[in-house]
């Protein structure tokens, strides 16, 4: 059973076409990492899962529901961590939690507090005055507090110093370990990808060129899925895409 099914989706922002027939299957309970070059396609896929965007053509199903039609039900079960904190700068973390709580029926204050403590998120400063890492951690705590079925991460590790990166990664892994949870993570950090992925998908030129278990992505004559192997896979996929682009 696939937690997320994206089928032949086209999307564009004005003239710029970012998705041109992308298909992606994210099985339930597995951690899928989405790789690819810079561009807006990957983030767009996440937005489609949230129901914030409606695909021009194609279908999107999250947990069996249409995220546009059943937006509320989908969003209650999907945690989203944006690449930058997208909440109001004047809020502190406790205020943000107070704000978010009524939106999620499964929100747990205890869980939120525990994650905040585990990540050492400052509770007395507003988001405007927090560093990037602190903001990121707060966003992660906010996304995990309602114990979502699906966790979407949009470049959570970008621009973090190594210590914070490790804390965030640890928290994500803990969340995955707690219970079966579907994770779709966009990242450029290939080390994280190698550590985290059960499955890997590569997006290039608006199409998912390659998708499969992480073990498929080993370099020839090697056993392990290394960052280098992933880098080669991405380059190869880009080449494929250039050739086979519609």
């Amino acid at each position, binding site marked *: 059973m696939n937690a997320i099914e994206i089928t032949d989706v086209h999307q564009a922002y004005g003239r710029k076409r970012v998705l041109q027939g992308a298909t992606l299957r994210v099985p339930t309970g597995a951690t899928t990492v989405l790789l690819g070059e810079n561009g807006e396609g990957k983030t767009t896929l996440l937005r489609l899962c949230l129901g914030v965007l409606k695909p021009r053509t194609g279908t999107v199903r999250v947990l069996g529901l249409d995220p546009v039609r059943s937006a509320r039900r989908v969003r209650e079960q999907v945690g989203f961590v944006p690449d930058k904190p997208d909440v109001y700068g004047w809020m502190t973390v406790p205020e943000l939690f107070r704000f978010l709580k009524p939106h999620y029926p499964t929100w747990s204050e205890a869980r939120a507090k525990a994650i905040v403590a585990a990540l050492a998120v400052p509770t007395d400063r507003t988001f405007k005055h927090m560093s990037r890492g602190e903001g990121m951690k707060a966003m992660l705590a906010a996304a995990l507090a309602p114990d979502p079925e699906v966790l979407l991460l949009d470049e959570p590790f970008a621009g973090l110093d190594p210590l914070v990166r490790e804390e965030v990664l640890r928290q994500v892994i803990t969340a995955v370990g707690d219970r079966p949870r579907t994770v779709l993570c966009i990242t450029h950090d290939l080390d994280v990808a190698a550590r985290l992925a059960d499955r890997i998908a590569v997006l290039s030129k608006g199409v998912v060129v390659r998708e499969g278990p992480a073990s498929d992505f080993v370099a020839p004559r090697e056993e392990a899925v*290394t960052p280098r192997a992933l880098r080669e896979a991405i380059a190869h996929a880009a080449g494929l895409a250039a050739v086979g682009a519609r």
Partner: protein
Amino acid sequence: MDLRVDPSLPTPPSRQIVEAVLDRIAAGVVKPGDRLPSVRGLAAEALVNPNTVNKAYRDLEALGVVEGRSGAGVFVRAEAPALARGERRGATLELLKGAIETAVGAGHEPAALAQRVNQWIAEAGIPSNGVPSQARNHEVSVTPRSARGRAAKLLGSEPGSVRGGA
């Protein structure tokens, strides 16, 4: 357990975990009857996907080193040290072979090399219980890379690396 996984290595992460656990069992750090860390705990510590840890534990179970008791966790079996050492013996022998080939290639005299090796073996002090004295006192970080490094130290290719009274 202070375990680190390095994904840039050619060894798959699950295998890295298996080897690390085997090394600890072989060195007596982890004794029979001990409970291994929970999957999620080890995954969080090593920063790997819990499925990786799951696979490692399954592999360890297949080797007969551990057994899973439902609900209680994964426990080290009595036969584990012997099995572990058996497993690691083969691997460490491979490593030693590789290290010696490297040393010989670097220009060490074979006879002096052999003497050095014997000396270190004596120092390593294998007691009757089969657990090396050194290993008893401090953690052994048994990633392949550090193993290679140790071997290099043993063979004197790194200055200031002599321990104890060598």
